[in-house]
């Protein structure tokens, strides 16, 4: 049995928790009464489950006749359905205070993703396309040096998480904007690093483009909402009145 995936998940969950803890300490998530840690973990589990089911169906494996295969996550998790299911779970669990819940999870989710990518060090799965750049390295016994593509993704996502956390700590923001920015950041980082990843096909590039489009649409809609109501800095949302 191999447990390196679990190790990588642990490396992802720790920064997620730490950012939630830091934001709660600073009062960033004060407008949200939900336990964001519970919401994040539930969304993670639902996302992985749905993504695994989608991958099985896409590969022609019947989940009803082969239910044991659902547990073998290493067999593949479809990124798009997993993300959509995780977002839908967050929306459902936080339906009474939608934007504060999404915003409260924005920086933490990016930090968690950064940790998951950095977890490649546990899984020995950091390498991508061949490269001769000074920081490229080779797997044991190989003369071919490669881009440490998962480390690139971890660094970019980590910077995005820090930027959004700091942005939120600087003052009141229009509800929904941090969440939209986080979605755009996550999708963009995956999109720009995808060409450097080894893959058997084209990769889920269209899902990443869809993530950017949805994030941008949410941001535009929220900005238009502010303009049409005349409210600014998030004061239009009842949940922010407690801030």
């Amino acid at each position, binding site marked *: 049995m191999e447990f390196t995936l679990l190790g990588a998940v642990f490396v992802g969950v720790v920064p997620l928790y730490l950012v939630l803890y830091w934001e709660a300490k600073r009062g960033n998530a004060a407008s949200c009464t939900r336990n964001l840690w519970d919401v994040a973990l539930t969304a993670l589990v639902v996302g992985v489950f749905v993504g695994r089911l989608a991958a099985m169906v896409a590969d022609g494996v019947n989940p009803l006749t082969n239910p044991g295969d659902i547990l073998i996550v290493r067999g593949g998790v479809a990124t798009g359905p997993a993300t959509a299911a995780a977002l839908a779970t967050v929306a459902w669990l936080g339906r009474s205070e939608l934007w504060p819940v999404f915003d409260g999870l924005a920086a933490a989710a990016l930090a968690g993703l950064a940790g998951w990518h950095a977890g490649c060090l546990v899984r020995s799965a950091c390498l*991508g396309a061949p490269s001769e750049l000074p920081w490229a390295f080779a797997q044991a016994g190989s003369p071919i040096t490669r881009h440490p593509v998962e480390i690139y993704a971890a660094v970019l996502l980590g910077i995005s998480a820090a930027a959004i956390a700091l942005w939120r700590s600087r003052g009141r923001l229009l509800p929904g904007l941090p969440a939209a920015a986080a979605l755009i950041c996550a999708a963009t980082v995956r999109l720009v690093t995808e060409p450097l990843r080894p893959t058997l096909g084209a990769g889920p590039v269209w899902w990443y483009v869809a993530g950017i489009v949805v994030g941008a649409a949410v941001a535009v809609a929220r900005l238009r909402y502010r303009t049409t109501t005349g409210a600014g800095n998030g004061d239009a949302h009842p949940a922010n009145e407690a801030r």
Partner: protein
Amino acid sequence: MRRSILAVIVVVLAASCGGSDVDVSTVPELPTISSQELETLLAESAEPVVVNVWASWCVPCRSEAPLLDRAARQPGVRFVGLNVRDDQDGARGFIAEFFPDAPIEHYFDPSGDLPLDLGGTRGVPLTFFFAAGGELVNLHNGVIDERTLALQIDEIKAR
């Protein structure tokens, strides 16, 4: 009531997803191969070879089979399946379900000793990556994921 009907429809639809319609009787018996024959096959191969060790009773093998099916369709690499500690009926049923038309050469090793001779273990699944000429480049224990498989194929192609 409506929810129950919807649930039944979803279950029926899901049950009809996937699977293969290939008749097991159309799958030929797997040839038995000795350690020496396998080593000769690897040494004489002009293309790099991926050897996947599987068994029909192995649940993780089912999980990685669709990925191997996709990878085997890539040009420039040869795929060999080594069925171990199994019976012909089980092996053929597995091929009919998961590799009905994949370009993979399957061999039969009822003793399960060949992976040990290649430098592996008795566990399944196992995936060996050989450069052209038979040099063992990498051995992956357990279920393989797409990134690892693509990376290792790239490695053996580049050797």
